[in-house]
């Protein structure tokens, strides 16, 4: 990156660069930690949203509970452990984030690639559909869908995917449009390779970079949107633990019992910020890879 210019200053620039490289690892570590918590945490910390322990309600962080355990992050208005809610909420968030992004990605990439590669009338119709849907506020559509049916995990995934795929489609279409003009695609076409095979083998692999970067950012948005829907009470059913619900449960107690809303809020923000930085780094790396 800094090829020639960096050589004479090698001695002075090395430590900051090393530090920068270390710093740039932090998002990986944090996101990795969340994934680990989401995967293994629920196995280690037991939590039952139905069970309430009223004598333990509103305990501050670090208090001892009536069963002899320690509520490291305090308890909520019904005596349920906040730490356990954060851990189990992480699994819900990751699960919903991953499945929504996977569905959006699948639908978006297929439609985008077809539109970009085939061009002509198909592209004109599809691209206009993308534009129209993009003009519609995503969260509003999600609220309408989530509010109209009975609450469930599947419904939240569908509601968030309903608009999530459009960005994937637009990015894929852009990439496909430029790749289809490349010489190797022409060569394949001249050799008589069927269109579907060209799309799958010579065009789609090149969309991987931007799509991964986009998927990361989309993941952060989905997690945030899910928390938002659950906060409003139209997201997940009460039997599923969710950060949004925990935050909503604590909003009556913001002043005296700050920990109920604040701690899951911090957990949510940390994940969003780190996934965002990670996505930005991936975008930057992909761009560098392409220009080199």
């Amino acid at each position, binding site marked *: 990156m800094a090829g020639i210019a960096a050589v004479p200053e090698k001695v002075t620039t090395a430590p900051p660069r090393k530090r920068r490289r270390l710093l740039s690892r932090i998002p990986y570590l944090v996101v990795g930690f969340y994934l680990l918590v989401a995967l293994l945490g629920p196995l280690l910390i037991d939590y039952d949203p139905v069970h309430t322990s*009223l004598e333990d309600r509103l305990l501050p962080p670090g208090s001892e509970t009536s069963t002899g355990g320690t509520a490291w992050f305090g308890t909520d208005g*019904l005596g349920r452990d906040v730490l356990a809610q954060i851990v189990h909420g992480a699994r819900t968030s990751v699960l919903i984030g991953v499945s929504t992004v996977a569905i959006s990605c699948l639908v978006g990439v297929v439609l985008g690639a077809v539109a970009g590669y085939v061009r002509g009338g198909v592209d004109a119709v599809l691209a206009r559909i993308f534009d129209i849907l993009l003009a519609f506020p995503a969260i509003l559509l999600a609220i309408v869908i989530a509010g109209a049916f009975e609450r469930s995990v599947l419904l939240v995934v569908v509601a968030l995917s309903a608009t999530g795929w459009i960005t994937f489609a637009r990015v894929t279409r852009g990439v496909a449009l430029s790749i289809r003009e490349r010489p190797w695609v022409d060569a394949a076409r001249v050799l008589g390779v069927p269109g579907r095979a060209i799309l799958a083998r010579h065009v789609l692999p090149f969309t991987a970079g931007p799509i991964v970067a986009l998927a990361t950012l989309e993941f952060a*948005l989905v997690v945030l949107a899910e928390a938002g829907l659950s906060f409003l009470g139209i997201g997940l059913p*009460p039997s599923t633990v969710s950060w949004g619900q925990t935050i909503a449960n604590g909003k009556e107690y913001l002043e005296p019992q700050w920990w109920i809303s604040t701690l899951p809020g911090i957990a949510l923000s940390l994940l*969003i910020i780190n996934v965002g930085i990670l996505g930005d780094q991936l975008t930057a790396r992909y761009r560098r890879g392409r220009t080199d």
Partner: protein
Amino acid sequence: MTKTREYGRSRLLRLAATATATAALLAACSTTSGDDDNGGGTGGSGDVTAAGTYPIESLDPHGAQGASTGTQLAGQEIFSRLVKPDPDGTLKGDLATSWKPNGDVTAWTFTLRDGVRFSDGSPLDADDVLASFQRMISLNGPNAGNFTGSTMKRTSATEVVLSSPAPDASVPGKLGTFYVVPSDVGKDDTAFFNDPVGSGPFTVDGFTPGESLVLVPNKEYRGEKPAPSRVTVRNIPELSARMTALRTGEVDIVWGIPDDQLASLEREKDLTVRTVPSSAEFTMWFNSSTPALKDAKVRRAIWQAVDFKTIISELYPETGKPADAPVTGVVLGHVPQPPVAHDAAAAKAALTDAGFDYSKKLRLQFANAEFRPFIQAVVSDLRKIGVLAEPLEKEQATFTEDLIALKWDINFQQLATPSYDAASNLGRLYTCEANRNGYCNKELDGLLAAAGATADKEERTGLYGRASAIIWRDAVGMYPMSVSIAYAWNNDLKGFVPDASGLPDFAGVRKGGS
């Protein structure tokens, strides 16, 4: 490619913007105590601002919203009634100066006050009372349900007679929700209710449904002129925002305050906090028509399985008291019953003996988010003995529809008796004919009918006591808690009287400090 990059950046920007907005929102929700300037909504002296628990959606007291708390609150300030309950529940004359039943209590004669005028100056007489009654019946709103089959007759300009098909001693109490509007108001006269003409202490200066109602004194009011020069009833749905508004002086009176907020309000030296026992009771009917709950032993065992005493002392230490009858102590017809003690082991044994199917989920329906913690605590207790209950929080309209259709196994309601008479609670809801909870008992029907047929208070109380004993013994429902309403108001308000139904009157309130 640059496109992708910019794209990524704009996403990040959006993320940041969302985060900032969320933070701003949270900050707006959090309370800022200590600030005690009397700024905000209230302007000059004599302006009183109140924020109640429920929104005022309509001013039509005869319509579909007629029984809602918001409409009742507005109705009692704008219109007059024949009789009205005092803050403690005793009845006194409003438009009527006296009322008396005939021998078999099937007809009540009301003598009207002379010289009453509407706020537009036109006189109010028996014709208006009669037309209002007919309007209420023909609109068939919730208040009309109290008078099925009843007819009103005008005997003179100052006398009406209300006849009911069966003996009914609770007619005066039930009339507490009957408001008189001018006789020329049509069935669907929405224009009239945007700027209604009434004979209550106040008239409407401005009304935005669901948001605010501004009242000014009615110049034609027959009684003492209302003290405040303007009363604004605002709807602040978010609890923390309501509490902040009270602390900053933006509103003067707030009621329906949850227990967890009371402690911090009591510490504020500028506020007066009071709780008053109300006619409302947590009522959890069992659907006796569900096969699983047909057996009274099963219903009783489920009641026994829930540790209501602990739940009440933890969740409602100040506004809750274990109930001792299907109606609360302020209601005529209240007779204490033996308490149902919590005993999980006995409950489990009784359920197993009765062959209860533990694999079946019971649908527990309720309507307001404020009751969610209570419901969750009950569900948790039931689960401890293996009974599965699924809490179903429904929109008010869906809830009511399902309630009538008996699409539930356990139904939770905070059931108030605004007439302060067991007739409109026990007498109306527990008969075989009403079929509100699938329970049918001819003996109970007989007792309730007999209690409705006599005007003698003592005799009625005795009969309702015997009816209560049957309801209690057969566990038609669980009756865990009688509710008090918590009020808080600024110390510089004088003459405010907390009302037992959550419908305070603002006519006597004056701002002392200014």
